[in-house]
């Protein structure tokens, strides 16, 4: 049997981020929908109640109207003795009695109940007199039907007065009910707003929690890492270089040089080709420290050709340490900075010294130049991630120090992996990269 936690994990495994996000939104939207539907249902039923509030008044009016019609047809019959009028009289009597029944039911008990009972009893009296009047008229007992008609008319007056009173009692009770419904609509308005605000807030909390679970820190780090690499690649593209084309072209040039016996040109082109090949070959973020050092060698060679051997390049590398995996493109940008901002155009022999040594659980890669040096404020700025002017030199490859620091931090999951030291103006700069040994890397 699978426990709920195991089931959740299983679902998580099988659901992509999109599906999970969709689920979250569907659940929250369904909830909002349920609340709205509830409110709508209540409002609808209240509207219906509102429509039927004055039903008892309508019935009482109809009762009064039927009574009038019944009495009218009685009068007509007594005047004309027409069989139509007699038919009408009995028809309206039936209608009146059925309305009366309805009114009595609507009146319930209590004072209105007593009033309705009065009307019922008076109506019985009226119908007795009226029926007797009709019978006397048919039997041509003139005195009797006149007498009965007068009695019926007398009672009719009382009935009308009582129906009027009952109607006003109904109206006053119905008005109270109406007021109640109005009050409940007001309550509902406040409730709806409160509920919707509450539900929205809770939904936001819910979404934040759920998406927080989906976007775990590890995944977020991977995504940021990829984003930075993309940025790196984009910078290359911005430089309008097609590495494949350039690499092939350079290789072709190197071969041509060899065939023509121009060995130095051939070597130069090979170095340039190797430099660009590096980016193509290293499609992912990992590489070995030795490859990074090789790239620096290529780069310095190219620079030396370009600038007629301005740079004295020295390496002090412990080869046993260079098999360590590191993020790609972390050394070359620093060397590029050392050249562009340190030793270029200083009017003396520029020196760059690359050293790799092991210190405790870390490898220390140092890139040192004898150039212009840096002010402590500039160092501070660069380390804190605001090196506005640092990377964007006109002929650099555009991958700045900030980018290197970010990728190091993301890759190793901790900060403080890069440090800069300078003894002051014209006293050179030394950049240290502290690489945790593989067993130290906390990924």
């Amino acid at each position, binding site marked *: 049997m699978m426990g709920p936690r195991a089931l959740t994990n299983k679902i998580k495994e099988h659901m992509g981020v999109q599906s999970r996000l969709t689920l979250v939104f569907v659940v929250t939207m369904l909830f909002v929908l349920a609340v709205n539907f509830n409110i709508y249902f209540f409002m609808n039923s209240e509207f219906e109640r509102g429509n039927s509030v004055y039903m008892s008044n309508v019935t009482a009016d109809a009762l009064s109207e039927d009574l009038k019609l019944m009495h009218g047809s009685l009068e007509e019959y007594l005047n004309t003795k027409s069989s139509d009028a007699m038919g009408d009289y009995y028809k309206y009597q039936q209608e009146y009695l059925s309305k009366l029944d309805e009114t009595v039911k609507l009146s*319930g008990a209590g004072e209105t109940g007593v009033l309705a009972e009065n009307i019922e009893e008076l109506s019985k009296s009226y119908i007795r007199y009226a029926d007797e009047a009709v019978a006397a008229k048919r039997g041509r007992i003139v005195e009797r039907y006149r007498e009965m008609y007068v009695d019926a008319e007398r009672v009719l007056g009382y009935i009308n007065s009582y129906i009027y009173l009952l109607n006003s009692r109904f109206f006053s009770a119905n008005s109270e009910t109406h007021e109640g419904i109005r009050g409940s609509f007001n309550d509902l308005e406040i409730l709806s707003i409160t509920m919707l605000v509450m539900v929205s807030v809770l939904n936001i909390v819910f979404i934040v929690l759920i998406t927080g679970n989906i976007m775990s820190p590890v995944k977020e780090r991977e995504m940021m890492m990829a984003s930075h690499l993309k940025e790196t690649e984009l910078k290359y593209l911005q430089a309008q270089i097609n590495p494949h084309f350039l690499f092939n072209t350079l290789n072709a040039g190197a071969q041509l040089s060899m065939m023509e016996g121009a060995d130095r040109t051939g070597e130069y082109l090979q170095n340039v080709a190797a430099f660009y090949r590096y980016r193509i070959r290293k499609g992912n973020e990992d590489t070995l420290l030795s490859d990074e050092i090789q790239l620096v060698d290529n780069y310095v060679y190219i620079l030396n050709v370009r600038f007629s051997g301005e740079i004295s390049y020295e390496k002090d590398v412990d080869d046993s340490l260079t098999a360590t995996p590191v993020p790609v493109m972390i050394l070359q940008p620093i060397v590029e900075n050392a050249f562009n901002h340190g030793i270029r155009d200083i009017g003396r022999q520029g020196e760059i010294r690359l050293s790799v040594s092991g210190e405790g659980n870390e490898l220390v890669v140092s890139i040192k130049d004898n150039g212009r040096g840096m002010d402590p404020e500039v160092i501070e700025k660069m380390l804190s991630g605001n090196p506005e002017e640092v990377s964007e030199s006109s002929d650099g490859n555009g991958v700045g120090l900030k980018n290197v620091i970010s990728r190091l931090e993301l890759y190793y999951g901790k900060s403080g992996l890069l440090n800069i030291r300078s003894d002051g103006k014209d006293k050179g700069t030394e950049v240290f990269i502290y690489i945790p040994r593989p067993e130290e890397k906390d990924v």
Partner: protein
Amino acid sequence: MKKDTKRYGTYITLIVLISANILLGFFLIRMRTVTNSGDPAGGGRTYDARYAFICEDSEDDLYAAVYDSAKLVGEENGDYVEFMGRDLSVIYSPEDLMDASVEAGMDGIIVESAVSDRMNELIDRAVDKGIPVVALGTDQTASKRNAYVGCAYYSVGQTFGSRIVSLSGDEVKNVTVLMTKEKENSNHDIIFSGIKNYIESAGLSQNFSLTAEFIDDSQPYGAEESISALMGRDEIPDVIICLQETATTCACQSLVDMNRVGETDIIGFYVNDTILSAIKDGVLLGTVVMDAETMGKYCIETLDNFRENGVVNEYMPVNTYVIDGNNVDDFIEEAVGDNDGTKSADQ
């Protein structure tokens, strides 16, 4: 650990969301119950009997108090007492209301009305149909009424007489009894006889000149006009006896308006806030009061008895008492506490 916390957070949120929906549901149900409880019948109780209460003047405080008492006792006994005509849009005469009560098949009728042939006929018709009738205040002796609830008017006259006698002095005093035209030959005559006989039996006939003056209350505001006319005369009686609450109130007001307080002694009938103030201020010498609460109670008990046993005590007298300067404060206190002024104090 962190993951667990988040998971719990999610579960808590879900629970809160579900609870909120349940709360909403409960709230809606509650609102529905509240709005559905508006019972158009108002009260909703059922009654064993419907009694009609008819009185000539629905504004009269005495009979309004009697009705209140009857209604209260009726509620306790499961009877609904309807003040006939009071809420109707048409103004009906007591006779018409009696007729309507008979046609509406009431279970009992309490009627306060002047004596008339038509009323007698209607009472007889009701009794013949098996509807018990209690005559209230004025005994309908010529009818088949089942019982009379009210005071003994002769003794009311004697009470007035004793107060008049206490005012005797060396000079002959003119005593005017204000009687209504409508009540000619009925209660007011009996009261007048009571007064006269009391003075005679006290041997003070020569000290008082007793006359009756009729006020016309057949027209609206007629009583007030008649009394104002009387008070406006150059010579007004030394003692004025009012036999109605309205007349008493009007007499007090006229005396004050015409600035003639002290020129005459008025003894009134029944009580209200104005009358109590007038006694307190010395405008009114005193007033004779009927026990309205007991009257209302007797009416209902009589009708209930008739329905249950078929027989009743035909004569149910109630006490009268006098409020004057000596005890008016007690009644003012009661009126403040009760805002009624009809509470009895058996003598």
